[in-house]
């Protein structure tokens, strides 16, 4: 571990691109102690000197009150070797305002004026240096321009050759004066800007949003299925399962133990097949799509478009992020609500995500289950999930008396995502899944196969039989996934695969699985975040909702068909 250098600046200035240019592959994402604000930390080298670069969460102002801003202030109040401040050439006034606030913290600082290719007439960095008393250079992070000069400045910081700037008078007048001297007039908006504007105009923005989301969905599903069917499963079936089965059959005598290991719900087979063969491909495709959405600048535009709908749920469009995350996994989705200040709002979002947003693993399972029968069923189920999300959100927020946040959000320029950055992000997230997601899943599959092969599950199935066969119109074995679903959400679906269900049964079972109680990991997070009472209430509510709605669908369907 070398000395620490902070990378500071407002949001949307290309800070993370600079971060990626400066650091190598040894990058990690961490939560700031006591918060859920994630920040990146990476090992870097400049002129042979090693140092740790910390990407401070982007803020507009050090006096604002949200958690990310508090983290930024806290980091600046520590004792780093220095700070690299990234200014936005296109929005110089607010960048200078923030720079003055940062300089006030008394840390040795150098400045990089990024996006300097986007302004006509250029940026007078010498003037900026003279006005603020710190070294400043021009950069174009996406092109890699100015990176060597920036590294030189960082070496200066590491050597202790930069002294903190004299305290400056703060305030907008000062910032406007300096920015005026440095003189940067924003360039004319090009084709990309026109597209960016069109995307937030209700027409064609809303149809376009539907199109984009459908394309993304198709991409996630297509890539996920492709990876599963043509890469991962053939690989496991050809090279992993046969030797594994052979080895077990050679060493373990026929009987319960062998069945537990390689039988129908064989632990060794399923603990590779489910997490790595079925879920991992969707983790990869989902996070790739999410990273593209994030990096292209489309997410804030989507937030603006959905605000009108979200306000009916007592939320604002910016809250779309936990929902999108929820389509990945409910755990990060619930954690990401922490920067919402209102607990009731957090509970609303968490409840909606638990109830009606299928996680990527479950979505994959749904597609595996329903697509074979009919693609229409898949579309129907996801339409139902959206409807359920809206209705439950509206009801819960009213019950809790949630007050809406008002949206004030910058809409950044559209950007072509950088492949290298996408790759790095994906790597970080897949690593996270393999570390934190696979092991609990394997343990639970193990427990389940023991319960299954020893006949305990069948016993419980017998007890649930009247409910499952009478009210829900499903075969008796369908109680197995309901029990397994407590462990992992997709396990409420996967065992249905081989049951030969009819269309109505498929729909009923899928709706129940969708609304059914969240998996054990999510229950844990809920209890940790909101207390036992709230999580117990959510368990009961999801359980009741799933059996009620599922039963109604089954009964109505049986009456009609």
């Amino acid at each position, binding site marked *: 571990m070398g000395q620490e250098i902070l990378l500071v600046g*407002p949001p949307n200035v290309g800070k993370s691109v600079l971060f990626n240019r400066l650091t190598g592959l040894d990058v990690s994402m961490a939560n700031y102690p006591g918060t859920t604000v994630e920040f990146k930390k990476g090992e870097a080298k400049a002129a042979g000197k090693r140092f740790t670069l910390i990407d401070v969460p982007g803020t*507009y*102002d050090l*006096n*604002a009150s949200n958690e990310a801003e508090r983290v930024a202030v806290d980091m600046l109040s520590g004792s780093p070797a220095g700070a690299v401040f990234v200014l936005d050439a*296109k*929005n110089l*006034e*607010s960048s200078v*305002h*923030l720079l003055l606030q940062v300089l006030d913290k008394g840390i040795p600082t150098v400045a990089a004026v990024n996006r300097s290719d986007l302004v006509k007439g250029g940026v007078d960095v010498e003037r900026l240096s003279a006005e603020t008393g710190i070294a400043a250079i021009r950069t174009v992070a996406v092109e890699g321009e100015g990176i060597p000069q920036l590294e030189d400045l960082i070496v200066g910081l590491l050597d202790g050759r930069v002294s903190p700037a004299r305290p400056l008078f703060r305030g*907008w007048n000062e910032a406007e004066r300096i920015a005026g001297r440095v003189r940067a007039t*924003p360039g004319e*908006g090009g084709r990309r800007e026109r597209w*960016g*504007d069109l995307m*937030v*105009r*209700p027409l064609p923005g809303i149809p376009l949003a539907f199109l984009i989301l459908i394309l993304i969905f198709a991409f996630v599903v297509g890539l996920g299925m492709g990876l599963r069917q043509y890469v991962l499963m053939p690989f496991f079936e050809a090279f992993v399962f046969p030797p594994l089965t052979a080895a077990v059959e050679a060493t373990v005598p026929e009987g319960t133990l062998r069945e537990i290991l390689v039988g129908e719900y064989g632990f060794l087979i399923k603990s590779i097949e489910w997490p790595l063969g079925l879920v991992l491909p969707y983790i990869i495709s989902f996070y790739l799509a999410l990273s593209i959405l994030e990096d292209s600048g489309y997410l*804030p535009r989507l*937030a*603006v*478009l959905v*605000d*009108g*709908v979200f*306000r*009916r749920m007592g939320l*604002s*469009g910016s809250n779309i992020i936990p929902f999108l995350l929820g389509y990945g996994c409910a755990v990060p989705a619930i954690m990401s609500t922490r920067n919402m200040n209102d607990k009731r709002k957090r509970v609303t979002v968490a409840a909606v995500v638990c109830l009606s947003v299928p996680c990527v693993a479950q979505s994959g399972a749904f597609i595996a289950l329903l697509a074979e029968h009919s693609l229409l069923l898949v579309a129907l189920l996801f339409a139902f999930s959206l409807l359920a999300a809206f209705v439950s959100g509206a009801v819960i927020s009213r019950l809790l008396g949630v007050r809406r946040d*008002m*949206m*004030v*959000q*910058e*809409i*950044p320029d559209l950007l072509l995502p950088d492949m290298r950055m996408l790759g790095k992000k994906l790597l970080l997230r897949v690593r996270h899944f393999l570390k934190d997601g696979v092991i609990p899943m394997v343990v639970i599959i193990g427990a389940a196969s023991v319960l299954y092969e020893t006949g305990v599950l069948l016993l419980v199935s017998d007890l649930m039989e009247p409910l499952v066969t009478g009210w829900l119109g499903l075969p008796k074995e369908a109680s197995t996934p309901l029990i397994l679903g407590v462990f992992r959400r997709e396990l409420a679906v996967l065992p249905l695969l081989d049951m030969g269900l009819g269309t109505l049964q498929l729909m009923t079972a899928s709706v129940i699985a969708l609304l059914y109680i969240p998996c054990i990991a999510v229950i844990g997070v809920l209890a940790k975040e909101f207390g036992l009472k709230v999580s117990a209430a959510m368990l009961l509510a999801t359980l009741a909702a799933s059996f009620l709605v599922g039963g109604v669908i089954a009964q109505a369907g049986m009456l009609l068909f």
Partner: protein
Amino acid sequence: MEGKRRSNDRSYGTLGIEAIPVKDPMDDEPPVMKGLANRATVILGRAFKSLESVVRRSPLLARVYEELFYSRILHRELDMSRLPSGSRVLVVGSGHLPMTALHLARHGHEVTAVDNDPHATASASSFVARVTPYLNVRFGTADGVDADTSAYDAVWVTFNVTPKNKVLERMLQTLSEGAQVVFRNPRGMVTRLYAPVDADCLGLMPHRRRHLFGKESVMLVKGSCGGPFELSETEGGMTLACLQCGLQGVIARCPEDPVLNALGLRPGKTVVSISRQPFGGPLLASVDGRKVAIDAQVAASILLV
């Protein structure tokens, strides 16, 4: 169509109310639709009037009618207005069956009800004399467009009043500072039948309560912009929320919020309104080349020169 217009091309009156353009949604409709909608308004208005003149013959029917159409709406309006008991209230457009006036009087307010139809005021006052003689409601025949409201604490403008825009302008001109106007507006699909008043463009921060069947109640408080400031004499009362798409304006006053200010929303800055979202969503504005999405309610607290 006109190209980019500048907001300072318009001149304002002392209160700026007459000069504020109120967008008529019918402008976009083809003439046939406009004619149909106008006709529908007239026909529906007449239908309600004749329904009321039938209902008023029976106290029981009247009571049912009140419960069905008025109780909930009035309850929510009173909740929104928080008018102290004993306030002087003017009801404009009370009709044959003055339910709004009666309800307000029951809540202990001193109510004057006017309608521009002398038949309506006559039958309304005879109805009250017959059914609820203990309630203190004065009736008069007057047109909202010429009314002087300076003596009232609040004015209620009922759903069927036309031209509602002109009436509201007049009310806001003559009311004293701090007094309220509550008016009923169509919303949703019903706006195809009745032209709504664009409440965001009256220069005051509207408070809204939505009701069933395509109605909403809007409350405006004279002299309050909803932001952390009161309007001064010289300010027009034009807010960012009413700036039409494609137009630009200069910010006169803006709430002191770190994020809002950092995004360039500060006094003296020129803002261009780019687009608006349906369902009361945010509007997109551009300041110094930066695009910012702003909640409609926040935009209503940003005052333009």
